[in-house]
């Protein structure tokens, strides 16, 4: 319980500090508080000053923080300047799409990565190891956006591209972890005593590798979210990755910071969950 509280406090602190940094960047970014109406040459200097004064958070930096905090406390994430819609509404519409993409990608990456890593490391299948290592190495060298483009070309479902982007990392780490665990003395002893492949895997190898595999699970969530941006943009999937890209091109800074904080919160929760799940496994093993 104490550990859970510590994790929650840490995640909250990171989000608050990140939020303040994001708000600072928004406040200090070139063009902050400038309205398009100001470009109207017929307006006098007083009118331009009045327009600037009317902008939310146009006072001092402290006023800006207070204004941002006050809005956040009321669950108001602001309004997108490019799409002219409340950010909360946009997130509610698009987050499920991204979660679907990320979940499918992770399932695919882990199913393929772990299966191939097990086959290569435990059953020491040379051809499988060579083919999987080669495929993973090639995939590691292809930009995520190009993979998404290739999926568009062959008219394959874009969501699967996330799986191919995460797969090489899962495979490489899982393979080396499992190979290292399989070479431990107690595993060799179990094999020498005649324990079967499945028994060795479930009783001797996985318990040793599980904490690190779970940590890798947490990291892979972050990787999948990052991969969602090019995949959603190029495969035209209306998720938050596509929204972030549109916000970046339109310099919709407040929306971008909200999105980044949301994704950070999700990845922090995933990493904390992986860490919390890994500890009991690790302690049990000891």
């Amino acid at each position, binding site marked *: 319980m104490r550990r859970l509280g510590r994790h929650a406090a840490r995640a909250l602190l990171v989000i608050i500090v990140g939020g303040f940094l994001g708000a600072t960047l928004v406040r200090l970014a070139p063009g902050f508080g400038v309205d398009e109406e100001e470009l109207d040459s017929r307006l006098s200097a007083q009118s331009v000053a009045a327009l600037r004064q009317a902008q939310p958070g146009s006072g001092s930096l402290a006023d800006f923080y207070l204004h941002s905090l006050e809005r956040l406390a009321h669950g108001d994430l602001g309004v997108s300047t490019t799409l002219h819609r409340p950010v909360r509404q946009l997130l509610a519409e698009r987050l499920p799409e991204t979660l679907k993409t990320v979940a499918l990608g992770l399932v695919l990456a882990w199913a393929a990565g772990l299966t191939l890593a097990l086959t290569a490391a435990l059953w020491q299948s040379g051809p499988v190891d060579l083919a999987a290592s080669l495929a993973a190495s090639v995939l590691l060298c292809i930009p995520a*956006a190009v993979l998404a*483009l290739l999926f568009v*070309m062959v008219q394959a479902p874009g969501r699967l591209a996330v799986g191919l982007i995460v797969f090489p990392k899962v495979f490489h780490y899982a393979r080396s972890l499992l190979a290292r665990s399989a070479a431990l003395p107690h595993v060799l002893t179990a094999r020498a005593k005649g324990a079967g492949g499945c028994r060795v895997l479930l009783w001797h190898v996985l318990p040793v590798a599980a904490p690190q595999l779970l940590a890798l699970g947490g990291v892979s969530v972050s990787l999948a979210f990052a991969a969602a*941006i090019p995949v959603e943009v190029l495969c035209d999937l209306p998720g938050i990755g596509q929204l972030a890209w549109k916000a970046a091109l339109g310099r919709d*800074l407040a929306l971008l910071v909200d999105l980044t904080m949301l994704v950070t919160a999700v990845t922090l929760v995933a990493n904390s969950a992986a860490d919390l799940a890994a500890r009991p496994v690790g302690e049990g093993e000891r």
Partner: protein
Amino acid sequence: MKGLRVAAMAFLALVVLACVLAPWVAPDSYAKQFRDIPDAAPTSQHWLGTDDLGRDRFTRLLYGTRVSLLLAPAAALLSSLLAVLIGGTAGFVGGVLQSCVMAAADLFLSLPWLFLLITVRAFLPLDVSPEVSVAITFALLGCLGWAAAARVICADARTLCNSDMVLLARASGCGGWRLLWRHIVPNLRPVLLAQFWISIPVYILTEANLGILGLGVAEPLPSWGGMLRELEGFSLFSAQPWLFAPLALLVFTVSSFHLVLHNKEGWA
């Protein structure tokens, strides 16, 4: 494996040489338009054909390679220097400073890389000259990529601080900056070198991703990312396999870096 590594090094040397000698290998400018032959197939004059604006693709590929391949190491150098400055100092001083630096590194590592990059890129002006866009893109990569390397270097610096060698130096009256520069930093060099090499392919791929998304190097200056955008118009029916030349070069170059990297990790 050793033969593969030698081949990878030779390939990298060849690519670097070709892009350094680009003005002699391809005498035309990367922005010169051959208006009579837009979107042309490869010929003896235009080895990879021309793009939809009539610019020679081979010339653009050479100059694009120059941008991506010479500036990614510059960004890697910047992030490695930041990592040694931040991580090394934190590891050397220890205590509260180390905790604060590690918390900052945690914060950076919690943010998904591409989200962070496009967010910070959007804070800077998007409508800039091509040269400024190159500087912004790679400075951004260098400035935001320090966290992972700083963690490793901080941990190594801490281990070194507690080592017998440093204890002996302290006992001999060596302290402060002298200890840092004469005993700790030289011993961090192998880790720093490995971090530098690891960063290069990561930055090449990231620039390519940003370029395809339209947030990288601005036109008409070519880069691998910008050239890969042409694949958006590729159709299996009007197959133009030469459009894949930048992708092939990128894959071979990044693979070569990975192969060479195995060796560097061994040194570290």
